[in-house]
């Protein structure tokens, strides 16, 4: 082996390390038990691994957080921290992440994601989207499902504690509707309102409304 090459690579990397340290002492901290770390740093160093640096995650296991309503995010993070929200993916991933977050960090995280720009998904099935559009804005009269827009806003952007749903992953929305319909794992806060809604929504209707929302900006 050419030791000179190895030394050069290691030397360059060490130099880069030194430069990055000069740049910032806190920018690379992934400590979830350090209240001095800002929500902004946590979002970049920790949350980005699953949710994407701009809150536009790729795998639908992880919700898109870009543009999400801060009050909703605060409520959810606190519910993870207190274990009041216990859906499977929630406790598998988020209980640990949220366990030592301070209220200040939670507020900062919520503001960080509010400031990110959501990227809508692609509508794959125009028929599904059209059906979902109708359900979202008008509800399903026959089964007493109210219009989603009445709480989540006409464009699905949410407000206050009602979450933004537009541009969310279709699979994530479907999973959460299933959680609301079949479990009490999210029976906390405003989530209590969703159980009867989801209960009266059929599987096909859930797919339609999820397809519609995921394609919206």
């Amino acid at each position, binding site marked *: *082996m*050419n*030791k000179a*090459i*190895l030394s050069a*690579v*290691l030397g360059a*990397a060490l130099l*880069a*390390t030194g430069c*990055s340290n000069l740049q910032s002492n806190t*920018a*690379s*901290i*992934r*400590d*979830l*038990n*350090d209240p001095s770390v800002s929500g902004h740093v946590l979002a*970049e*160093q*920790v949350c*980005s*691994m*699953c949710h994407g*640096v*701009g809150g536009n995650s*790729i*795998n*639908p*296991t992880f919700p898109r957080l870009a543009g999400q309503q801060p009050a909703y995010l605060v409520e959810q993070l606190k519910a993870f921290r207190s274990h009041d929200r216990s859906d*499977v*993916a929630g*406790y*598998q*991933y988020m*209980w*640990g*992440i949220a*366990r*030592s977050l301070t209220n200040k960090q939670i507020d900062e995280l919520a503001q960080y994601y509010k400031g990110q720009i959501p990227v809508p998904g692609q509508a794959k099935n125009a028929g599904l989207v059209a059906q979902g559009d109708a359900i979202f804005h008008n509800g399903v009269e026959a089964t007493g499902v109210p219009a989603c827009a009445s709480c989540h806003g006409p464009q699905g952007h949410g407000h206050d504690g009602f979450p933004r749903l537009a541009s969310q992953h279709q*699979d994530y929305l479907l*999973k959460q509707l299933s959680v609301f319909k079949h479990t009490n794992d999210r029976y906390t806060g405003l989530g209590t309102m969703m159980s009867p809604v989801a209960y009266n929504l059929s599987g096909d209707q859930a797919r339609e409304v999820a397809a519609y929302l995921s394609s919206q900006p």
Partner: protein
Amino acid sequence: MNILNWNKNFNRLREAVSTQAPVDLWRTAVQKVTWQGVSVALLATVSTVASMDAAAVPLFARQTGQNCQACHAGGHFPELTPYGRMFKLTGYTLGQRTSLPIAAMAVFTSTSVNGGTGTMANGQPTFNTASLFAGGKLTDSIGMLAQYTYNNYQDGTQSGHMGSDNTDIRYAKHIINDQTDLIFGFDANNNPGVEDVWNSSGAWGYNVVPGSTGTGANQLPLLAGGLAQQAVGAGAYLYWNKTLYAELSGYRTGDGVFSFLTQQQGGQGAYLQGTNPYVRLALTHDWGTSNAMIGYTYFDANVYEQPAGLYSGPGTYGNTGGPVDEHRDNMVDFQYQYLLDPNVFTFDAAYTNEQIFYGSGGLGGAGGTSDSINEFQAKANYTYQAHYGVSLSYFNVTNTDNNGLNAAATCGGSGPAGVGQCGTEGWTPDIYFMPVQNVRIGLQYTLFNRAYGTTVNATANNTTMLYAWTVF
């Protein structure tokens, strides 16, 4: 998690089996394996689970507060998810330091070989290995995983040996913002490939369970664990934009001050000349529920033909003397993962070619001659709800025989009389159940199409294995 040792165990088993015989009694062994193995596995599992409290989950799970499934695809450890890879690449530093920075692993197996009965590991339950893990997050940029293994079944007896196992120490920085996403770091370890996050090389290869047959008795490239706990290495790596991974490391003999990392089972066996390069490149892409990787690994190691003190030729003695064989490994690998609860599907394949250039006659060949080894492995795995799983592996290992590589002794076992070949080929189906996230109970069957280079009587090597694998 040392494939070299698993292979050693398997080879010792093979040697013992070949001296016993009555082939037609193997069914009795299978019955024994089934009932005795099940009893012990279940008892072990139940007692292990019962002794755990809610917080008693493995080291990294305690550090992150997350479930095993977050980092291991479908909970099928040790296979990593994209998030698990990021956790490792950022130096095991995500989370919070724990007051108990250790974890333990135990493997119970019961094995039955088609062509033989009556050995300690054949048809009887065996407490195979136990490991202690230590480390995790040390500082905001430094973390480690150090494994110390108690190998209970060794030398054909239940007398145990303890020693250092896979160790991986990292320093990592992650520069990430709207414009940049760059991880870079340094790594020191004691097994070429243990630092890899795609589980393709031997160190954390996920096509084997501790104690299983692996690819059988054969000659494998050095990358398949041949220098595990024999060499120490250090290097630098970067992962750019979740797209390009590049690493350059150098490995040398793990003696002297590094002995604590290498003196595992039986002490130092391999001595390297100088510093030997390890290069790893990978391209990755995530889309929707899927992610894929295509990669390349290069490892070029100069290994002394005789251990220190045994060289009897001219010149100096010790680990700097004697003729040297160059082992040049080139590996290409591919991985695909589909991850969306409750379904997890993964596929991986790796092909390794090793060229051996002999310095003199260490393996019986003249200086200037060479041999080659080709190893291909592929595996498909499906897990449902992180509880139920099935996998199918395929392996095909061949080598040339210019310099006695195929002699029975260098195949690592005692092949059938008159057969002087090493190559193996076969399939390993495996079904498993994970009642809780840190326990896996499985039944594995390895079907040999070819053993010792021949299809004749290859099925005598077929192996059934029941295992209980716990981490706590």
